[in-house]
């Protein structure tokens, strides 16, 4: 485990974090702007706060929101910058260049790169420092939708192939759901929740996850394909998701937003919604005057549904009741 303990007063804002995160995989730090995410990352790197150890001795790789490549160096010079200064070289330069698809860019100047290419170079530079921990501060936030989609597969590869732990700051719940294994929620400089991604996302009592960010991640095995859809088995029903995914591989992540889940007392008939699952109500949590979040048990996993308080009353939704969950839309990480 990595123990993060940082306290930093900044005017009337106080960052006060004391949390343990795993030393493998990607840990997401999620929160609204102003919740202290970046400040926490900068404290870990030693760029803010003062606990004695200078930045360059921390052996931490940092990927900033803006790539910030050194304009006087080529791509090669940029990625070798950290490698030359690494205390011990544990990362193979060719494998990183290969993983991030930089082979054709090595002799280019930073000002000739697109935003996504530059960010890939910045990531390679941070990795070749052979860090004990990689910090990423919203590395996709400065990119437009298209560039983001271009870059995301590289992050999937990083996630699958990298052995160094990553702390990934984001305010985009979709990104976090896709990339992270573990999640720390920050609210007003303090840790609101932390734990396994799936567990944290299925909580109904954390304000930052109650609005449009509410939704779960499920692990599921593809079973077969039909009509351009893939069927995932959930024990008590199937989920059909767009796209073709091979059966027999490792389980895939499905992201289901709470606003895409509705609840019915009886098995709905003649509906356009394909995914109808038998579920047990586990918790009903009012969010505001009009709406509530309902956590539903499906097999041994959980779904969240956003419903109105009016429906909660009319359908008498209470913990323990058996209902049908209708899932309108599912995103699969590919």
């Amino acid at each position: 485990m990595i123990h993060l303990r940082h306290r930093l007063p900044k005017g009337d804002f106080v960052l006060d974090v004391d949390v343990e995160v795993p030393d493998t995989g990607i840990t997401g730090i999620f929160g609204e702007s102003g919740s202290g995410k970046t400040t926490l990352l900068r404290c870990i790197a030693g760029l803010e706060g003062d606990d004695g150890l200078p930045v360059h001795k921390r052996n931490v790789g940092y990927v900033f929101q803006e790539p910030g490549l050194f304009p006087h160096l080529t791509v090669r010079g940029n990625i070798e910058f950290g490698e030359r200064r690494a205390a011990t070289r544990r990362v193979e330069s060719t494998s990183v260049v290969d993983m991030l698809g930089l082979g054709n860019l090595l002799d280019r100047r930073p000002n000739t790169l697109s935003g996504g290419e530059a960010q890939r170079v910045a990531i390679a530079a941070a990795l070749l420092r052979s860090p004990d921990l990689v910090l990423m501060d919203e590395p996709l936030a400065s990119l437009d939708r298209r560039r983001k989609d271009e870059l995301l597969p590289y992050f999937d590869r990083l996630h699958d192939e990298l052995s160094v732990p990553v702390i990934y700051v984001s305010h985009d719940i979709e990104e976090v759901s896709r990339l992270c294994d573990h999640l720390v929620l920050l609210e007003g400089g303090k840790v609101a929740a932390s734990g396994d991604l799936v567990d944290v996302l299925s909580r109904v009592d954390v304000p930052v996850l109650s609005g449009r960010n509410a939704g779960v991640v499920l692990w599921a095995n593809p079973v077969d394909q039909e009509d351009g859809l893939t069927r995932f088995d959930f024990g008590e029903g199937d989920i059909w998701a767009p796209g073709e995914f091979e059966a027999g591989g490792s389980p895939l992540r499905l992201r289901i937003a709470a606003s895409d889940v509705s609840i019915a007392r009886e098995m709905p008939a003649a509906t356009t919604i394909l995914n109808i699952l038998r579920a047990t109500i586990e918790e009903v949590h009012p969010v505001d005057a009009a709406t509530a979040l309902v956590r539903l048990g499906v097999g041994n996993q959980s779904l969240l549904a956003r419903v109105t308080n009016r429906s909660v009353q009319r359908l008498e939704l209470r913990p323990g009741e058996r209902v049908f969950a209708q899932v309108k839309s599912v995103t699969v990480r590919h």
Partner: protein
Amino acid sequence: MNLYGPLWLSAQLAFVTTIILVIVGAPVAWWLARTSSQAKPAVQAVVAMPIVLPPTVLGFYLLILLGPNGAVGSWWVQITGSALTFSFTGLVIASCIYSLPFAVQPMQNAFESLPKSYLERAWTLGASRLDAFFSVAVPLSARGFVSGIVLSFAHTLGEFGVVLMVGGNIPGETRVVSIAIYDHVETLNYAAAHRMSLVLVAFAFIVLATMFVINRRWSER
């Protein structure tokens, strides 16, 4: 010899002065660009003073300071046995002070326009403060260095008042080109004065034009 001696001496003086000013001026410029200290305006004023002070005033105080009875001069006599005033070394010291703002200000401007994020990235990639200064700040501020070098060289080449006060007019030691030109004019040897002056005019034009061409290349990059 009579013609090229003073020119050569001026070139030597400007060369030595410029090297010293880059080495001494860069840390001063770096500190000025990055400090939030209360002392910054005072230091800035001291550095800039040679721009507004009449060279004779500066030269007068330097003469007192560097003279055999002055604070620095007497110490120098004790160590080396010779006086600083009316010597090449004395001229170098005086020129460094006289041209200091012309070296410091362009470097300071360049350092100030350098985004801090480059330094932070260099630190997180394992560079110490000193390492980041040389491997990132200096190359990215090359324009400031070029301007600082050109301006202090050219400015030292043209100084007159300070040299006259501190160095006098000793051939081969302190008789720099501006003094020599003045001498030639005094003795109505206009031809010699012309030759030396034309060399300086041509030099100034070539150096400045080159600098502006380099600057334009850089800003296009």
